[in-house]
């Protein structure tokens, strides 16, 4: 396995910049997920790593060796494509064997390798079939098998699960994760699905408009999003982003949610980073995850980082595992994740506790995290 370094990688088509100055360093055995909305440049970046497209600038290093000028075949990188890209004229066995045959690996060794890969992925009974005789999940396994066969130093996955139905997607996601844990392989994985990104990655690179928005562990990206785009993109339901005025309250700080018709709602804050002090008196965007809120039961008192507030319930969405409620928080829509068996009704007023330990605030102008 290998380390991968992207150094100031850029790509433009004529005047249009597709990728702006992307630098990412991957340690051996990392699982990097490139995630972002369509058109964010994640697939282009993957194609550049694969060697299928040339960067307009920058360098790629695999194990410290410059691979920028190398052809795709000479990089020792395997790729699993979104459409699986199985060769329709070859059997499953021939498909898996193909990269080995192209590298002139000895015949007996090839057969051995095909067998061991097939065993690993439990597709031994499919070896003599043609791709068109396989289901979507089986094709996916064969495509992964073909990538494994030649034991490359780096694996690329280009939205490998997006052609599968929902149940199968979950199963294959788990399998890919298991595979990563078993092989300890270095993997770069492209998806537009933020849940896939969260579950699989050791690190996530969130991209938008060809710009790397944030590179971090799933925990960092989820809890300390670098800007409002990342905050809104990662997580379902989205992070609540509410404009509020930052004010001094005693020795601490407080947020004041303004409303034209009602008196402002003031919520005192726990200890915040000192960078916040520069924004006193100004508006900030407060980011609060849905799960930071709980319904206040009778006689309950808020914990140290919790604050109480009252709000009207507008919509109730039970999902089974928990119940989402959309609240009217002083004129703002505010989604909260509650216990599955709450008995709230739309239109009802209730008291909630919000845990501000994970509160993040963003600059109104730059939309960047204040930290």
């Amino acid at each position, binding site marked *: 396995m290998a380390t991968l370094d992207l150094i100031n990688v850029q790509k433009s088509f004529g005047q249009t910049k597709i990728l702006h100055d992307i630098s990412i360093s991957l340690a051996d055995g990392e699982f990097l997920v490139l995630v972002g909305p369509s058109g964010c440049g994640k697939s282009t970046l993957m194609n550049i790593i694969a060697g299928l497209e040339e960067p307009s600038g920058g360098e790629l290093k695999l194990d410290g060796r410059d691979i920028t000028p190398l052809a795709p075949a000479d990089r020792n990188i395997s*790729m699993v494509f979104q459409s699986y890209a199985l060769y329709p004229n070859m059997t499953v066995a021939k498909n898996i064997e193909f990269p080995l045959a192209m590298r002139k690996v000895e015949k007996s060794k090839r057969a051995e390798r095909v067998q061991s890969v097939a065993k690993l992925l439990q597709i031994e009974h499919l070896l003599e079939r043609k791709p068109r005789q396989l289901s979507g999940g089986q094709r996916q396994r064969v495509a992964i098998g073909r990538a494994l066969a030649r034991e490359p130093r780096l694996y690329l996955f280009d939205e490998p699960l997006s052609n599968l139905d929902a149940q199968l997607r979950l199963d294959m996601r788990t399998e890919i994760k298991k595979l990563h844990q078993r092989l300890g392989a270095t993997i770069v994985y492209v998806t537009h699905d933020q849940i896939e990104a969260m579950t699989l990655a050791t690190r996530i690179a969130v991209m938008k408009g060809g710009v790397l928005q944030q590179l971090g562990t799933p925990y960092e990206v989820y809890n300390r999003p670098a800007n409002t785009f990342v905050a809104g993109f990662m997580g379902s339901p989205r992070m609540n982003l509410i404009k509020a005025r930052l004010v001094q309250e005693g020795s601490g700080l407080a947020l004041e949610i303004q409303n034209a018709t009602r008196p402002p709602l003031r919520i005192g804050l726990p200890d915040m980073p000192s960078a916040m002090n520069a924004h006193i008196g100004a508006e900030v965007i407060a980011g609060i995850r849905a799960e930071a809120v709980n319904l206040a039961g009778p006689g309950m008192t808020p914990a140290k980082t919790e604050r109480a507030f009252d709000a009207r319930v507008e919509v109730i969405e039970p999902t089974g595992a928990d119940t989402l409620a959309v609240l009217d928080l002083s004129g703002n829509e505010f989604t909260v994740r509650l216990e599955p068996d709450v008995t709230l009704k739309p239109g009802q007023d209730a008291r909630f506790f919000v845990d501000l330990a994970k509160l993040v605030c963003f600059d109104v102008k730059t939309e960047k995290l204040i930290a």
Partner: protein
Amino acid sequence: MAERLSTGFRADRIFLYAVLLCLAFLFLMPVYVMVVNSVKPLDEIRSGNLMALPIAWTIEPWLTAWSTAQIGVQPTGLKPYFVNSFLLVVPAVVISTLIGALNGYILTQFKFRGSHLMFAAMLFSVFIPFQIVLIPMAKTLGVLGLAGTVKGLVFVNVVYGIGFTTLFFRNYYAAFPLELVRSARMDGADFFGVLLRILLPSSGPIIVVTVIWQFTNIWNEFLFGASFSDYSSFPITVALNNLVNSSTGVKEYNVHFAGAFIAAVPTLIVYLVSGKYFVRGLMAGSVKG
């Protein structure tokens, strides 16, 4: 109501079949005349009706046309020219098809400056009338030392066929999944590896179309054959023309009919064997399959 619908439907059907039968009759009539008169003695043709069945059946005209009719200097029949046509058609079809596949591959899988212009230029060659190239081609064949040989005719027909074969393969490969080719490249297939192992094995329908198209065109081609070959290298079309137009002696119509039929047999066989692929292949690529 249901009854009216069904009678209306039946009337449509009757009309349809009537039209189809008329057309079939129209197309089959000349074939019938050819076959019937090719198995009649010459006397019966002169004295009798062209449409009538023979009174005394004979296969003599076929044997004459095949092996003893006077076409060149020797009374050899059509046989050596039939062989010439095969020696011309087989390499010409194979070479032009392979070049077409190679061109289609390059034009679709490699984005290079001027690729569209190059394809347009190749497409344009399809519209150049044969007559325009006769004199430059004669000069070219002379320089290459191929004038008056079967090889020369192979060259001419390959050059002329490339426009068509390129068009066929380019359009077929334009609809070919890009990821397959990318995957093969990452798996280590080189330039020809991608073509030979990935593209060609998946090109069955378009290969059939191209082969039928090229085979019938080159087999039936007359002008180049008449212009660039001599007695040793005439293709069958030119030999048939010479057979029919020989100015000495009586016109042996029965032999002419038999000869014409012999000349048409290979293309007929090709159509009968692979006609369904032709229709299927022409549709292939237009709709994602």
